């Protein structure tokens, strides 16, 4: 006995083929003797964000007995039998719209992400925490089928809507047989074999796969390629357990970046921190220190970029990204824009300093570096240029930037070690906060200035409060590009410090 229509809601992004899937569902229903209605808001391809499609169906034979059912133009919460979301954040949205209810709804969700602009444009990591949404999705649905449908579609050489259709068929949430679904694909008469392949993949994975979240994987100990590396890794064994993996990666990175001596300098510094670390805190400090020290010591300069860009392994990665056949010509054009500042950085320290500080030299020479340059790395001229540049790294220690960087690192290490003794949380925060000092040009300058301001303000407050203040400033530094939030907080804190000093 049918007392109401079967109700299906679908949340898809522009370009995911929500319309195609809707058409299939209506077609299947109508061919199986159902009355069917669908509605949607015309998604103008990619431009509109997410669209809700609504499909309802009711057996015609029952309608002849009881009258035509009233179909709704928009999903009615509490009443929805099947919800399909073509992307994982949309699963969260479907739940927030009230479409998913525990006794009624089978939820079919793709675990892959299409990041929203806010997540993508964050200065740090602005991504949604998928594991919470997954837990909630399991909690509020009658049944949850969740796997990476985008990947499944790609593997099957198909489109995601076909995979979704397969998952719907497998869920048994609709009263149709597998062959009914496949017939609809055939009737569509477009890309039939590809769609059937996607359908099959969806069907199989929906039947087999446990719900997955696509969370981050834990880092593993690296493998050394030679004796020097092995010796370095052996030395990390002396470090506290939680820091070993990062220190191992860090040491090999320093070796790859410069030379053996530099790698040992790195490990010396990590050991210095480990000695000041506190076992009761599970050596958290050494781990973050090791990670951030490696990144600061292996800062990216012109020489490093030239080195990385010319490696065979990188060429292979690019070819894989481009998806080209073995002997197919594919040229790699780089977009470089070395500015006057980068040129100063790469000069011997004395000359670099003079160039950086002399307004006249800057006026004369800076215009030469106003335009970006394109270099084709896998043509002979381009390769030679970059590989010669990369070879200069053996003189890196004498460059201006190296001197500046070591000065910065040394002072940071001193602060961390000092803080480790009397304010452990502050020491950890000093390492975490280092992630705002990265990149090139303006990004680097901005990060470094803010790091220095932040640590100065934190140190100006009482022991015990420092970590919190630094973390707040750290977060503010990553809030917006123009530094509005950071500067607001900075003035606020400076005013507080002023008030306190007056009170004293």
């Amino acid at each position, binding site marked *: 006995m049918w007392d109401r229509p079967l109700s299906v809601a679908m949340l898809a992004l522009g370009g995911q083929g929500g319309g195609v899937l809707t058409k299939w569902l209506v077609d299947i229903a109508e061919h199986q003797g159902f009355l069917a209605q669908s509605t949607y808001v015309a998604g103008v391809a990619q431009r509109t964000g997410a669209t809700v499609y609504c499909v309802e169906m009711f057996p015609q034979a029952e309608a002849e007995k009881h009258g*035509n059912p009233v179909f709704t133009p928009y999903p009615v*919460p509490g009443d929805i039998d099947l919800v399909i979301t073509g992307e994982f954040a949309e699963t969260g949205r479907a739940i927030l719209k009230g479409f998913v209810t525990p006794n009624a709804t089978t939820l079919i969700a793709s675990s892959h992400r299409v990041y929203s*602009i806010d997540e993508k444009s964050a200065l740090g990591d602005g991504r949604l925490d998928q594991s919470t949404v997954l837990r909630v999705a399991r909690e509020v649905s009658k049944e949850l089928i969740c796997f990476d449908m985008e990947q499944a579609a790609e593997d099957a050489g198909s489109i995601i809507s076909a995979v979704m259709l397969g998952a719907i068929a497998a869920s048994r949430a609709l009263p149709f047989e597998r062959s009914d679904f496949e017939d609809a694909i055939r009737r569509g008469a477009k890309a039939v074999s590809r769609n059937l392949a996607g359908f099959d993949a969806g069907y199989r994975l929906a039947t087999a796969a446990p719900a997955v979240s696509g969370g981050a994987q834990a880092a593993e100990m690296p493998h050394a390629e030679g004796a020097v590396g092995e010796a370095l890794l052996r030395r990390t064994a002396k470090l506290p357990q939680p820091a070993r993996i990062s220190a191992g990666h860090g040491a090999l990175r320093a070796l*790859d970046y410069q030379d053996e001596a530099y790698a040992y300098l790195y490990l010396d510094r990590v050991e210095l921190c480990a000695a000041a670390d506190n076992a009761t805190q599970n050596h958290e400090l050494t781990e973050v220190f090791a990670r951030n020290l490696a990144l600061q010591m292996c800062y990216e300069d012109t020489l490093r970029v030239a080195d990385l860009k010319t490696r065979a392994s990188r060429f292979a990665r690019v070819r894989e990204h481009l998806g*080209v056949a073995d002997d197919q010509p594919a040229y790699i054009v780089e977009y470089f824009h070395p500015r006057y500042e980068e040129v100063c950085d790469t000069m011997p320290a004395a000359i670099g300093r003079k160039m950086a500080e002399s307004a006249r030299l800057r006026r004369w020479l800076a215009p030469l570096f106003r335009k970006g340059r394109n270099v084709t790395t896998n043509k002979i001229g381009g390769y030679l240029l970059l590989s010669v540049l990369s070879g200069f790294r053996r003189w890196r220690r004498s460059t201006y930037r190296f001197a500046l960087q070591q000065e910065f690192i040394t002072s940071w290490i001193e602060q961390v070690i000092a803080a480790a003794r009397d304010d452990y949380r502050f020491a950890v925060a000093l390492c975490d906060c280092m992630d705002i000092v990265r990149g*090139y040009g303006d990004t680097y300058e901005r990060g470094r200035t803010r790091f220095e301001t932040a640590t100065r303000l934190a140190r100006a407050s009482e022991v015990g409060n420092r970590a919190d203040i630094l973390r707040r400033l750290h977060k503010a530094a990553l809030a917006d590009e123009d530094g509005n939030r950071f500067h607001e907080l900075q003035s606020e804190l400076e005013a507080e410090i002023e008030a306190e000093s007056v009170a004293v």
Partner: protein
Amino acid sequence: MAERSFKQEVEKLRLGDGEIFAGEGILAVTKALLECGVSYVGGYQGSPISHLMDVLSDAEEILRELGVHFESSASEAAAAAMAAASVNYPLRGAVTWKSTVGTNVASDALANLASGGVKGGVVVIVGEDYGEGSSIMQERTHAFAMKSQMWLIDPAPNTEDIVRAVANAFELSEASNTPVFLQLRIRSCHVHGRFTAKDNRVPSPTLADALANPVRDIDRIVLPPASFLHEQEKVNERWPAAVRFIREHKLNRRIEGRRSDIGIICQGGLLNSLLRTMERLGLADSFGNSQLPIYVLNVAYPLVDDEILDFCRDKASVLLVEEGQPNYIEQSINTVLRHGDCQAAIIGKGILPVAGEYTSTVLRAGLVAYLAGADPAWVAPDDPLLQVKQAMEVIADSVPARPPGLCTGCPERPVFASLKLMQQELGDFHISGDIGCHLFSILPPFNLGNTTMGYGLGAAGASAFNVSSEKPAISLMGDGGFWHNGLTSGIGNAVFNKNDGLTIVIDNNYAAATGGQDLLSSKGENPVRSTQHKIEKAARGVGVKWAKTVKTYDIAAMRSALKEAVNGKGNGPKVLVAQSECMLNRQRREKPQFVKAVHDGKRMEQDRFGVDADTCTGDHACIRLSGCPSLTIKANPDPLKKQPVSFVDNSCVGCGNCGEVAHEAVLCPSFYKGTVVHNPGALDRALWRLRSGFIGWLQERAARGRMRAA
């Protein structure tokens, strides 16, 4: 050529008597127009009726066979004025647009049309862009119906009712000599359903017949003294005739319920949502049988006083479900009941929200609140959402919003990147926005634009700032808005008033935001329209001296043109035409050609961008200057780094913006362009072998060096 093709589906328009038509709302409406013997159809695209315009365009052959003239009007005003053909002749006509914005534009013509009245039926099909999925201010077409005394039909959202409403609208229009609005809500336009078709009707008389035998009736022209006569006619003749017709033909519907003491009055467009919500509350079944009597206003204006009094007479209270504000219907019904000395209480706004869409959740709360007062014995079933409330709270703040944005490879992106870079250099400018895809500039990541005053009004929206300034106002306008009215209201206005500001006209060859319809400046050949009229030439034609056309992807040229324009040398307005084809349409056009060429063995080059993860800083500055869907992020493969890295997915079309931006904004050196050669020739192959052989040898040497040190 529009984004979505209905070429195949329009064949359904040929169905005849008794055949079952299954399809979308917009096709059903078109079919109904043909069944009603319409002579002419015009309109202007805009969601939610863009696809109706596309259907009509694609059906042009079928329309011609029937002798129906279809016009892609220059604006809603032009479309509304078309209906003048029905003033003196018994010709049926239909015009369509997005409302209320389109109705605003059309108002002048509509008011004139409604004043003089019509002989042939005129139906104004408005896509009521209200609530979920809407892109405009939230207003009601109802107000226009009231002020000009045009009738407003609001059918239930299913194809059968919509098709019936079209026929009713023509008959009502002719019975009362008044143009009639047929209001289609967003989802009604795209509802798939079925109905039994009738034969199409060839219009008679034809447009040619009318032209051959002109009729002139001075009483139908809006000029004193006839205009005073019209006002009297409206209230003394047309309005009563309309009410009579609605009553006699039972255009409004009554669902009888078990209860006699309470009831509901609702707009037709809300009936389905209301009934289904009532079903959840145990107040109705799924077949439209309700415990409470319901009076359904399929005609939302004018009201039929007798029917209202008859429905309310024996009731203590009636719930009025009227979406949108002001609550015109509630006010009118209260007046009717007062005049009719009926004591039933009308409960509407207050229990239901004054403003905002009446979704099922909203209706449920309203029904529960109403019944709690009207029938204290009634117990509401548990709200299923209570079970999920807590779960919702857990994720409420973390699910990211997904605002609309520009498509992959959109040619407008480099224009906004250029503007953003210019602002970084010269400080912020006042930017007057317009309607179109380019209005997405106000959203992240560009965050550009201060106001938007309506379609084609970007330049006019900056006209007050006609004062000397280091930083003149900048206005934006799309090609669609330019031809709609911007050429006169914006450019001509600026020339005449000697405004020195800059107007950037985004010329992407189509009315892109509404789905890629052709317009005067479209570059492609259109067999039934005249295209290829240049925007720069039109601007110069109205007196602009400083006019330039720049390819949008050339950010360096764009930046220098922008700077030249705002540096204010020379008097008078500056018009910068930012030209490049809409990528969506370009891909649709070029991709099949490309695939075919590769398949046929022709040598073809294909560009795609990439980011080297190991040099990417994870700062995402590139994304903040782009927002391209294909430029996204992924987990950092480097175990030492936490921030996700930028990543170009395989939807990249190689437009070149990423590289240009990397150069101009001095971003990190991570971007690269991969140029893939398909079907390489002998020389290609030889050069490739030479290069990769030599470089491979050098790479091996370098790797050996590294190995020795490792």
